[in-house]
């Protein structure tokens, strides 16, 4: 099978684009799970809300992409605050599974609500003018928007990693993950930190949603299948490390991209297949610490 270098590189880029979404979403999941001990099944739905809000802003108010890149995460972050304060905080004392079930219910509610208004078919969202078109780099033609997605995602992921691992705020977060009572005894407002963490995770998901709007078809169901793959990514990477989630997400996106070139039929299942292998060889995940 002859594959040209430009063809391969463009597939690599597409894989990186998907990998960026995996990375941002698994990062958000890991951060939320670390502090709240809740698997946020609603992450996919929040991603979708970010994308749909962008579409709604464009179609009803004429508000453009660049505004929504900041506004959607803010709005969804606020929504996240509501979710955490009104719903999540009742179930922290309970078994893990109730967190999953509650967020599952939330997912169905959110997706069902949008579905009843917009149906299941896709809504189209145009690429912003500034990033339209492609640049000829000689060895390949680089679609501008996709390059932007990867760049923006890397910046956001790196910034998150930096804040969590290298700043005082991040230190409080990490300490709160290990021993919330003790941290509270030191005078840190742990409940506030918890709320803001969830809101931040939600905002991250929405940010990914806005990025995704021009490339993935915007529809109420766009988060569904994505979230399950992200779960597999998280199992493969292990939730112990932030950098681990990012690298695993990106790596799996690339692998998936290559699979699409060489063996398309397996592309939707390759991530799960890798999960099976990792579970057999290294159950704690590639970067995981046994919790």
């Amino acid at each position: 099978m002859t594959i040209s270098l430009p063809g391969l590189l463009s597939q690599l880029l597409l894989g990186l684009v998907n990998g960026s979404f995996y990375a941002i979403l698994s990062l958000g999941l890991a951060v939320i799970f670390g502090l709240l001990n809740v698997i946020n099944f609603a992450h996919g739905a929040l991603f979708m809300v970010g994308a749909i809000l962008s579409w709604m802003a464009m179609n009803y108010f004429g508000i453009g992409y660049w505004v929504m890149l900041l506004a959607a995460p803010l709005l969804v972050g606020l929504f996240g605050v509501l979710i955490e304060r009104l719903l999540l905080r009742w179930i922290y004392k309970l078994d893990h599974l109730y967190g999953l079930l509650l967020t599952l219910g939330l997912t169905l509610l959110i997706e069902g609500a949008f579905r009843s208004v917009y149906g299941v078919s896709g809504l189209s969202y145009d690429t912003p003018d500034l990033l339209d078109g492609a640049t000829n780099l000689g060895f390949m033609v680089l679609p501008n928007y996709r390059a932007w997605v990867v760049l923006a995602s890397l910046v956001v992921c790196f910034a998150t990693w930096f804040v969590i691992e290298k700043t005082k705020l991040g230190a409080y977060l990490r300490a709160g993950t290990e021993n919330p009572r003790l941290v509270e005894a030191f005078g840190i407002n742990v409940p506030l930190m918890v709320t803001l963490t969830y809101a931040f995770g939600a905002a991250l998901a929405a940010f990914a949603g806005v990025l995704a709007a021009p490339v993935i078809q915007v529809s109420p169901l766009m988060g569904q299948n994505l979230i399950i793959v992200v779960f597999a990514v998280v199992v493969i990477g292990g939730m112990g490390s932030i950098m681990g989630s990012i690298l695993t997400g990106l790596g799996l996106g690339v692998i998936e991209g290559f699979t699409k070139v060489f063996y398309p039929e397996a592309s939707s299942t390759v991530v799960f297949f890798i999960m099976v292998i990792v579970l057999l060889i290294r159950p704690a995940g590639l970067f995981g610490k046994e919790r």
Partner: protein
Amino acid sequence: MNKKTIGYLLLLLALIVAPFVGAYPVFVMKLLCFALFASAFNLLLGYTGLLSFGHAAFLGGSAYVAGYAMKVWGFTPEIGLVLGTLSGAFLGWVFGVLAIRRQGIYFAMITLALAQMMFFVALQAKFTGGEDGLQGVPRGKLFGLLDLQNDLVMYYVTLAVVVLAFLLIVRTIHSPFGQVLKGIKENEPRAISLGYDTNRFKLLAFVLSAALAGLAGSLKTLVLGFATLSDVHWTASGQVILMTLVGGLGTLSGPLLGSAVVVLLENKIGEMGHAIAGLSGIEWFNTLGESVTMVTGLIFVICVLAFRRGIMGEIIAFGERLRGKG
């Protein structure tokens, strides 16, 4: 003979006479299959404490296997059911070996991911018929004697199978094996310290649950005559969790009630919406039929926040309070 047994016998009696009092046999058969599915699931969640988010793989996978066996290979129904059950058990063993390696919430995520893999396999494999599903599965003759084309005969066969499977679950729960499972659910470290190989028990419970879910799926294929992708979609996994949660985790009758509630809800929500719209005068309720997802989500949220014991759980707790034990 205590109250519970009387209750079950009355239920059985009601089910036996149901076709003669106007109940549509195929609908009740569908209910019975889901009741079995939910009971099998409850064995794992309510009694062993393991949340599997991928039980649709067993329901749907066996549905396809049984359907294929009966339609393409021409096997008689009882062989189809046996093959379906065995394939459920086998798949359960594979999933279980992989999932049990991780604890708690990872277990759920792994089962979900594995089931999703099954979904894509079912979507792409030629023999499943993809989006159309496997249609036209013949009912055939049970043991070569009983003609299952007759809805009434099919009904009593289904009832017999489900009752037998349910009795198997009851026997399992009350056996020493079942007691160990309960012990694992309550406090796994203590069970380990008592010398039990908890992983082996968990795997066995998983395989049993998967096998019975497979039986439910095969039976459903036999009754309805088709197997589709919705049987392997993760929403089916979510549905069975809801059935068990609403009915009552860790109670025997809970899943029966829960499955009835959820199936009725899904089929009748359109009518209920119209009724509420008529009563309250609010137009929006007329569209309730299109919002099954939303209503399901709302019920999930309410159950987790305020109604964790489920209907039967609350009834049992209420009964205990009345007797002064609570």
